[in-house]
């Protein structure tokens, strides 16, 4: 009798795995509420969204890439580069700074896309290579650009990254929300969105059906690069200072948010809704560690362990046996 009920529950969870994610998120919030009563409130929610926004945006790009059975390991380097370029160019005007920063993301996206789609380099290697190139170029750039005025975050970037409307609603929430709507609706409703799933699920069938898979891949990597650039801008706006390792900490979370969110790393399965909740879970998790005042190494160990645990739980409940 009990096993029967459990089976039904499990079947329902398999239908809607995102329920598990929301439950985990609520559980973590509850944990914070118990550990530090009085923390949970409007301001806390606003701040959590503020800190989750860069991760959520970069996870959107990572989700698209992973749906095509790829991975983008250059997102962290692109975030750092976009943030640093924006800060160092703000001397010449905000618009130019923002455009140049976004251009960095686009260029890296085009490079990744060309490598993966046209030259058929494995995504892991290609994005690893471009990540190294970007990090190295940024280092050289930072040594040669420093005399053009001190790096300062452009006002518009700071407004988007850390501004709050009516003193409570973060501006970045609107940007993140807009991107989320575009990505979710785009994946479901547009032809390109369906093709992303198709290419990730079965590239051979796509080729036989006459799909120009290389074009789909190229566009996907360009979008991912662009979104990484946007995420870098939002991050530097929130932190209000740029350095050469700003985005590095986002590499694991960007992959983890997508995987926890139920997108298969083998492609063709998943969506952005899960990654969105995944990004929130990871952000709440780190704020929980901060509240508990755990020492840094312990924080790191727990973070890694919990990511594995959540991914494992997801694989079990969703029954993704691949």
């Amino acid at each position, binding site marked *: 009798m009990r096993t029967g009920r459990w089976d039904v529950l499990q079947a329902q969870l398999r239908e809607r795995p995102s329920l598990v994610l929301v439950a985990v998120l609520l559980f973590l919030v509850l944990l914070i509420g118990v550990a530090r009563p009085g923390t949970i409130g409007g301001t806390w929610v606003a701040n959590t969204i503020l800190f989750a926004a860069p991760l959520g945006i970069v996870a959107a790009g990572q989700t698209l890439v992973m749906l095509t059975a790829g*991975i983008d390991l250059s997102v962290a380097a692109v975030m750092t580069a976009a943030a640093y370029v924006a800060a160092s160019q703000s001397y010449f005007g905000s618009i130019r700074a923002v455009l140049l920063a976004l251009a960095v993301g686009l260029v890296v996206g085009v490079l990744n896309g060309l490598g993966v789609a046209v030259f058929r380099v494995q995504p892991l290697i290609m994005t690893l290579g471009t990540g190294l190139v970007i990090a190295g170029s940024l280092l050289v750039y930072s040594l040669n650009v420093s005399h053009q005025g001190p790096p300062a975050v452009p006002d518009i970037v700071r407004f988007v990254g850390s501004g709050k409307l009516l003193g409570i609603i973060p501006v970045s929430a609107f940007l993140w929300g807009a991107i989320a709507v575009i990505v979710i609706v785009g994946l479901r409703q547009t032809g390109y969105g369906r093709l992303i799933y198709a290419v990730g699920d079965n590239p051979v069938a796509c080729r036989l059906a006459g799909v120009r898979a290389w074009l789909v891949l190229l566009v996907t990597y360009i979008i991912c690069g662009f979104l990484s650039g946007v995420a870098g801008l939002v991050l530097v706006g929130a932190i209000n200072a740029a350095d050469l390792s700003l985005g590095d900490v986002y590499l694991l979370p960007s992959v983890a948010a997508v995987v926890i969110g139920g997108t298969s790393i083998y492609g063709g399965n998943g969506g952005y809704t899960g990654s969105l909740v995944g990004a929130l879970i990871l952000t709440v998790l780190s704020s929980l560690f901060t509240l508990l005042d755990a020492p840094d190494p312990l924080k790191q160990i727990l973070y890694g362990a919990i990511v594995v645990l959540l991914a494992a739980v997801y694989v079990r409940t969703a029954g993704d046996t691949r």
Partner: protein
Amino acid sequence: MSVAQPANRPLGGPSFRRLLRRNAWTLGTYVLFLAVFGFTLSIHPDYGPYEVRSLVVGALPLAFCAVAQTCVVLGGGIDLSIGAMMAVANVVAARYMFHHDFQTAVLVALLVLVGGSLAGGLNGLIALRTRVPDIVVTLAMSFVWGGVALLILPKPGGGAPIAFMEIASGNLFTPWVPNGLILLVGVVALVWVPIKLSRLGLALYAVGSDRTAAFRRGVRVGPTRVFSYALGGFFAACGGLALMMSTGIGSPLAGTIYTLSGVSAIVLGGVSLAGGRGGVMGPIVAAFVLTLVPADLILSGTDPNLGQVIQGCLIVLVVMAGGLAPLLRNRVTRKTDETTLSAAA
């Protein structure tokens, strides 16, 4: 990429050409190394034993790291926590060898090697049992091992007896052959070669190239995969100890760059990331190339900060060139397939 050789290929034949074709990529890596080395000699005429020693000592950790990644990748996985495991081995060695004699240091080193194998095995076991993709598990485990390293030694420090460091940095026979090289060759010859020649090595390659086929052939896929990770952990521990010997101190963050450099080295060294293809010689030579290039940059007056850029370009270009050959071959075979099909129709 890991297409099995057709079974009806005639054996024997021009065996030299077959050997050449099979090892073409590794030979290419040697040629690349010789080219870079030749360039080094041309810009640095008085290249002597001291430079050879510093090259070997500098390349040793990366070489072990590349061998570690090779073991895992050959078995069809990937371990992005190798750098962090190296850091753990490094700080354990630095903390517990400090102010001790040579015998204690060797004992600690042996324990570190055992611990490294266990840590690697744990990675593999988690990936196997949870069915979470290897990349995700090991990326998360890199956080765990990185945290462990910070717990053991919060900031760079510690040390080891001079005699222990001489294992890598001294020279026993002639100044031209540093101990580090002998150590590298010795460890690989004693650990990797017997495994490769045994059934276990065959199982490793089989599981890496086609897991299902290997399973149907009666290979114990799960244990073999865990073993490949444990072997990776063992060599990662070797890398951590080599790092200890070459830098003289323990540093909890030193390992992080080695994960990516190690992947670069195996890619340059001709190991297919799809698994089941390649050997350890290519990655070892590639590790020396990757160590020599930044040194050359400094010597030739180029901005050494461009090192990462060149490393990235090198990986991408080499892989593109390597990917082009099978692509062209496939196109030819596909065309012939199509012609035979249309002829049959």
